[in-house]
């Protein structure tokens, strides 16, 4: 029988603002009645946020929907644009590029993955590219955008999208949302984290002005500083830099020039890579690199040289360590965002990992005694999520043929997790891709990147060996025709935005 009056948490303290802090505050305030739980967020204007131009994946739509945020309002407030995928330049080989689009390639038939049919087609049509069978990719290349059609029979139902936006504006947008729902914002810099001498649980945080904020549950959203999870609770960090050697980024915005692209661009460089994220009025840029193989000055030069337009301000340096806390929930502290772990934003997963941290917490929402079994399950699920994203990101570095710099020579020849080796080998043998349950990246995502990085299967899966080639060719032709027609009808990305959610703000 359920207990009638369970002990509930009545005081939650979020330490740190930024995307992580305000996403947490917004989600909790949407779920918990303000009269029952007091939620406070402590942040200091003296401490800047990482806030670079942010690219996302389609899951962000679910997060905003959970909060009941109207899409157009959100896009206007954050200078947001639509994103249909990521273009990877110079990753597999210098001079080559490919798109990792959102959504499926073609249509699976008789329970067999579409890419298997395409691989059989490729045997006799070596110039065919799988991107031509992704509506998101075809639209992205044409600079077009339209909303997906909920009717599964429409080709437009295959479209998937996410956003590019200004992360600082997003945090502000969510701050308004959360404050309207009773979240109390406290301005102040944390000077002390007071713990119970026996249990080590955090009792309160103390601010520069001498005030104390007590709480039953604390969220550490203090970014790389990890004020609670690291400095106070000393939770060890699981370092993955041997697989992902980049440790520094230089970020700068520049003026927008030309069309607003409906995709992110990631260009592989000598010792890392550079991102380009278009928002409505400017482009966010960053150069991520390994500081042991490239100097800051060289990284900045390379970044500035490749900007689309004049830089807005000077590049800002960000140092990071790749990996995650061994336990993201320790005692009465949950680390969300960079304090919990960091994976470079090559596949735009930063906000997703924040979102997962929050949604798993909500699904496991504990009673006031914070049972160890709940913490344990939370940590199991979050670590699994980090590991899944990690393998997908490492794939981009491992599956390269580049041998033009020490950086690529290292990543190309390094040992990778067994789970990833097995995936690569399975694909290399006969194009087989198996998705783990609850895994973020779908089969088409793995296929797009594996093929894009030039891992072409040695043979097709025998299961398509009996399928008539001419029939496959006809099906593929009708798919491309339907997609091309659909994209022709779409407005340009800019035209769609101007009509739907133009912010009117300037850069």
């Amino acid at each position: 029988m359920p207990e009638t009056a369970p002990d509930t948490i009545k005081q939650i303290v979020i330490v740190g603002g930024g995307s992580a802090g305000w996403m947490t505050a917004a989600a909790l305030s949407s779920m918990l009645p303000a009269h029952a739980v007091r939620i406070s967020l402590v942040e200091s204007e003296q401490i800047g946020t990482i806030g670079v131009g942010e690219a996302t994946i389609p899951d962000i739509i679910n997060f905003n929907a959970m909060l009941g945020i109207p899409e157009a309002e959100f896009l206007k407030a954050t200078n947001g644009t639509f994103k249909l995928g990521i273009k990877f330049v110079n990753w597999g080989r210098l001079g080559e590029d490919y798109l990792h689009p959102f959504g499926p390639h073609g249509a699976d038939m008789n329970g067999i993955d579409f890419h298997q049919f395409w691989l059989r087609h490729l045997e006799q049509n070596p110039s065919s590219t799988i991107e031509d069978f992704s509506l998101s990719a075809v639209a992205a290349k044409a600079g077009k955008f339209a909303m997906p059609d909920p009717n599964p029979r429409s080709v437009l139902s295959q479209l998937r999208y996410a956003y590019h936006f200004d992360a600082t504006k997003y945090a502000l947008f969510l701050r308004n949302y959360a404050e309207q729902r009773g979240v109390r914002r406290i301005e102040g810099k944390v000077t002390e984290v007071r713990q119970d001498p026996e249990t080590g649980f955090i009792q309160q945080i103390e601010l520069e002005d001498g005030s104390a904020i007590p709480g039953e549950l604390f969220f550490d959203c203090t970014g790389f500083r990890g004020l609670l999870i690291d400095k106070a609770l000393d939770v060890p960090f699981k370092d993955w830099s041997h697989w992902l050697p980049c440790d520094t980024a230089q970020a700068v915005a520049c003026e927008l020039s030309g069309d607003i692209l409906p995709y992110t661009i990631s260009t592989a460089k000598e010792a890392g890579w550079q991102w380009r994220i278009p928002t409505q009025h400017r482009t966010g840029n960053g150069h991520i690199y390994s500081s042991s193989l490239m100097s800051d000055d060289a990284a900045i030069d390379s970044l500035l040289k490749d900007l689309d337009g004049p830089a807005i301000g000077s590049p800002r340096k960000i140092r990071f360590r790749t990996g995650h806390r061994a336990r993201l929930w320790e005692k009465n502290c949950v680390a969300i965002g960079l304090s919990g772990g960091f994976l470079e934003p090559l596949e735009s997963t930063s906000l997703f990992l924040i979102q997962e941290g929050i949604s798993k917490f909500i699904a496991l929402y504990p009673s006031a005694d914070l049972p160890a079994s709940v913490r344990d399950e939370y940590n199991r699920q979050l670590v699994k999520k980090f590991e899944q994203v990690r393998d997908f990101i490492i794939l981009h570095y491992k599956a390269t043929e580049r041998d033009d710099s020490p950086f690529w020579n290292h990543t190309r020849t390094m040992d990778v997790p067994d789970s990833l080796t097995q995936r690569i080998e399975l694909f290399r043998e006969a194009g087989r891709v198996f998705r783990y349950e609850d895994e973020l990246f779908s089969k088409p995502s793995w296929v797009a990147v594996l093929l894009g990085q030039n891992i072409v299967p040695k043979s097709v899966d025998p299961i398509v060996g009996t399928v008539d080639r001419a029939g496959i060719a006809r099906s593929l032709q009708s798919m491309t025709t339907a997609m091309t027609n659909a994209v022709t009808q779409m407005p340009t990305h800019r035209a769609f935005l101007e009509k739907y959610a133009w912010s009117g703000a300037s850069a």
Partner: protein
Amino acid sequence: MTTRSKTIIICGGGLAGSLATLSLSLSLGSEYHIVQVGGINARHEDHLYGGATDPGSYNFLLRLGLDEPTLMLRSATSFSFGTHFRQWLDGRSWMQCHHAPLPTPSGIPLRHYLTRENAGLEPLLISAQAALAGKFAHPPADPRSVLASAEYGYQFDADEWVALLDRKIGETSARRINAEIRSIIHESATRSVVNLDTGEPLEADLVVDASGLSRYPIEAAGGTFRTSRSIGFSLSKTPSDALGPPCRTIDADETGWKATTHLQNARHTLRVSEAGMASDEAAAHTAALGHLVEAWVGNCVAIGHAASVFEPLTPAPMMMLQRDIERLLELIPTHADPGIERREFNRRFRNDVEHVAIFHGALITIDSAPETEYWRAAREQTASGKLDRKLAQFSNRGLLTSFDLEPFNEEDWTIAHWGMGRRPHQHNRQVDGVSDTQSQSELGQIRNSVQQLVTKMPPHHLYVGKLKQYLEKQNYA
């Protein structure tokens, strides 16, 4: 890209052997020679498949050319909304039905409302209520219909299905040899020689062990079967013109349990009890429960009972057999060294075995089970860290912890927990934003819709009768 001609020999003539032979013949191109060698498994072992499938069998059989009209007209197959645990441990009784994802009012899982309202789950499940009332109708495609949430599998006679499959195999290029296997020599990871009692040696690139409990091929390759318990089992078939409900019925007693399957022309009763009980008719045959440590060893892949044996308390044995075949089809080796495929196959096999075991464990884990030899042995098999985690998380706040690609989904687990009398200690805070009045009203609406629909549905026997008349008129026969 290259492929070369290969020979796959399937050892076994029962349900596993015939399903595998037909699946491989239809799925692989002409560069694969499929050979089935029958005769080394005993037909009574197929009774351990339990005579019931889950909803996943529909598409699986359809791909083999065994569509529903064929099953209904050419065998005594009937529909199954699941398993009715009519008299289970501690006097529990519930319908372990097949159901589409449960409703999520205001985006919150139904079980959290039920916990807060201390309400029953079964009255909200259309497939449970219909089965208990002996009613059946096909779920419509229109998602607005309450019946669209129902999912179904089949109740079947394994011997009949083998006969149907064998006819289909005859239409393919597969070669069938009715001979006994005298020996198998696994010469390397890519070549075996199967010696028949006819004196004919057959060379194989891949051997599929569908030999049931004998496991000769996989053991010859070095496979190890892990078991700690045996059961006795026997099947009795009672002719009957009156088709029973669209579900299997299971009743437990102190010495084991029996399952009744309701077919178009008969009632089958499978009795399962302690092995070696001389006074018990169920001890007619015995089977060791357990599984291979690795189901793919060298170039030999075991499927069905050769790979794992579970009590057919649920459709798990058929689900495992289907998964074994699908896993094999997805991983047919394409190159000289099948190491990559073998590793992946075994990884997923181990997961499947473990996940079936924990679901069955959840049906046994109860403090008040009889203190008899049979149930003590059954309980001793349930220890698992994953099951402990699932039970602890559900008990805390109704959380359904899931692991990679489990055969039993969230609905199966929710229904099983409720059926076993488990309830979260506290309701999940997600429902706090929805008032009691609102949630009671929503639950009431679902309950009423289900109740009203069930009264309008036809009895299972009438529905099957009319369906067959219709199909015959359409010349399906």
